[in-house]
């Protein structure tokens, strides 16, 4: 056990920090500016770091990936675009794609020439994702797609989508699903923005009516889609493990600064014993998340896949983020709810999870998403119970038979 960074890692961190100082844009206003920043990151060797070199990646270690993300968080660097392409679609193609698919798609994800989304959830298939109904019917030379998807991140920008659709309604629901790459720029695909409680629209609804998927764009074999989807959810591979904590720490320090200015009962809130207890607890929780991230990185560096352990990590940080943001709201009072006209002392100067809106209000509202997306906390607890603790499966009405 040695929790110091190696000399190589320290040197690499310094190199990344210097690069960011020299290359980071001051402000990003348009998608084109963000794409330009994305390409600069790629040219610097900081995107697709874990991907194989022959497809434009860097073949970097997990720790190097974590360091880059961490330094970007520390510098408040804007995120690259094409997040789903980088985080989910690319790794899925690397692992499950054919050679032709890898050659065709991977490089263009890294250069943001082609933007991607993920078409998984449906109105009636959220936590029960395997109940999805979007149908892919074999038409000889292609598949015909009909159905509706929801919670599609960046759907409005996407050129391509990673699609889960049912190819065999006759078998048990987990076994009849296949995974495809679908062209989003075709007449049969209709994308409508979905406005969230944040007021912004990072997500979309996608309606597919007699849409077309070429045979060459099936990922894996027919009926293997569920297994592929299970692994893609684990592809984040700890890449953002440290960066997340660094962002929290930056937010925490800004909260402490605000607590020093704000007063209650005639004295700074920061001198209030109850508030200090709450701040102390959140900091302890935050540090424990950091220690956990170091544990995950250790495992990744040894080539171990976190597997169901990823559920513990996700459950832990997403629930922490809600507690943290609730405390921020308590301390900031109505300042914490401002979406506009925020006095500079109460702005939040960090790149938030998905957008650039630097308000506590946005960060607070967004914290509600973490315990729902990519498997709700309840689903994570089921996974932990069944796959780590080996508890008996519950009796479920849908264990036998086909989809309906």
């Amino acid at each position, binding site marked *: *056990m*040695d*929790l*110091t*960074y*190696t000399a190589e*890692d320290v040197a690499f961190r310094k190199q990344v920090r210097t690069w960011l100082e020299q290359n980071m844009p001051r402000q990003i206003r348009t998608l084109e500016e963000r794409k330009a920043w994305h390409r600069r990151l790629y040219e610097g060797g900081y995107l697709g770091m874990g991907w194989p070199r022959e497809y434009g990646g860097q073949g970097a270690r997990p*720790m190097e990936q974590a360091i880059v993300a961490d330094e970007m968080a520390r510098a408040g660097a804007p995120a690259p675009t094409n997040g789903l392409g980088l985080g989910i679609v690319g790794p899925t193609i690397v692992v499950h794609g054919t050679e032709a698919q890898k050659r065709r798609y991977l490089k263009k994800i890294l250069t943001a020439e082609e933007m991607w989304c993920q078409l998984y959830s449906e109105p009636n298939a959220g936590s029960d994702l395997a109940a999805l109904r979007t149908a892919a019917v074999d038409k000889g030379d292609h598949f015909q797609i009909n159905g509706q998807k929801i919670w599609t991140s960046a759907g409005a920008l996407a050129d391509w989508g990673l699609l889960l659709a049912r190819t065999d309604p006759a078998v048990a629901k987990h076994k009849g699903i296949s995974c495809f790459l679908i062209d989003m720029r075709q007449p049969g695909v209709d994308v409508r923005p979905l406005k969230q409680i944040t007021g912004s629209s990072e997500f979309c609804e996608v309606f597919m009516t007699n849409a077309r998927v070429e045979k060459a764009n099936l990922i894996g074999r027919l009926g293997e889609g569920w297994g592929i989807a299970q692994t893609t959810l684990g592809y984040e591979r700890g890449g953002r493990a440290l960066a997340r904590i660094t962002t929290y*720490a930056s937010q*925490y*320090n800004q909260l*402490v600064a605000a607590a020093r200015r704000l007063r209650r009962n005639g004295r700074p809130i*920061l001198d209030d*014993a109850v508030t*200090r*207890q709450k*701040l*102390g*607890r959140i*900091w*302890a*929780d935050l*540090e*424990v998340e950091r*220690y*956990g991230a*170091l*544990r995950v*990185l*250790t*495992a990744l*560096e*040894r080539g171990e896949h976190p597997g169901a352990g990823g559920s*513990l990590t996700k*459950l*832990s940080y997403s629930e922490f983020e809600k507690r943290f943001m609730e405390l921020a709201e308590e301390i900031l009072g109505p300042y914490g709810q401002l979406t506009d006209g925020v006095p500079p002392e109460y702005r939040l100067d960090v790149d938030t999870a998905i957008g650039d809106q630097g308000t506590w209000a946005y960060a607070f509202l967004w914290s509600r998403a973490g315990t729902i997306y990519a498997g709700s906390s*309840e689903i*994570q*607890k*089921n996974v*932990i*119970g*069944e796959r*780590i*603790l*080996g*508890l*008996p*499966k*519950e*009796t479920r009405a849908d264990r036998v038979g086909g989809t309906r």
Partner: protein
Amino acid sequence: MNFSFSEDQILLRNSVRAALDEECKPAHVRAMAEDPRGYGEAFWGEMAKLGWLGLPLPEEQGGAGLGLVELALVLEEMGRAAYPGPYFASVVLAGLGLGLAGSAAQKEKWLPAIASGRARGTAALLEDSLDWDPAATTATARPSGAGWTLDGVKRFVPWAHVADVALVPARSPEGLSLFLVDPRAAGVTLTPMVGIDLSNRWSEMRLAGVAVPAEALMGPAGGAGRALEALLQRAAVAAAAEMLGAARRCLDMSVGYVKVREQFGQLIGSFQAIRHRCAEMLLEVENSHAAVYYAAWALTAGAEDAAMAASVCKSYVSEAARTVCGDAIQVHGGIGFTWEYDLHLYFKRAKALEPLYGDAAYHRELIVRGQVVHAHT
């Protein structure tokens, strides 16, 4: 960066666990609760032979010279077994305390004796007020001839009734000082304080005009504050390691139970209400593991955030162990509330440690104080 145990560390843990599984079954814990001394001498001798008693002590004084990570591994297993005996008092409080504050002569006298099991030590860190801040000490030390006269009342002194030496903070004219006191010396009165934890023994230690020689003073008179703070940090992490072990035992027992207990014609582990609780318990245990071993490493390595890590560790694990051990009783239902079932041995072990060496509230205040002075970068 490597947050995993070495092969040697894993071997150590396995051998400690194997020995405790053999020598410290629940029946042994229960038997020792009825024993006047409260622990088994034979196993104590065995622990000395295995090198556990000198594990973190310097090799020059008969120790193994290992760090707090290895010590935490042993303590986690002791918590898991609810080991009854003066290991924590002697090795952590007296052993590490002597290492931090003792003179060369004091170390030479006591550390080999502690490492070999010939002597047992403890430390009297609490008084009536329960304030863990060493500066709150009210016991006094008056210069008297070549030595000192000590007066005061210490509470919750672990295993003092079997100790040969106790570290005793007292206020001398120079300020906060630390003394080595023989608990059997004239003027010392020990009164048992019996708590709910069957594997632990506390005493009230009343000091009335206790004469100690000049060489009983540890370090410079008035200069004990830093050493006591350092000892408190180590004791906090060590206690958290035991709590982690107790919590893991409670989790394991719960998971085992819900896989066999049936109600409504089904295994109760299949119910989400139970399964989700068990998943939350595992999360708390794993987070506690990270908190304990990070802090143990940081203190050993002298990392910049070592003091912070100790407070993070104790505040986090105090509440996590409370939750996990409490939830274990809930998951078990009625059987978990019986004396006959062993769960309460571990529940009570964790509970007894929860307020010691700083409770969660004490350490949270230290965290915020550290932050306001020293913003995290």
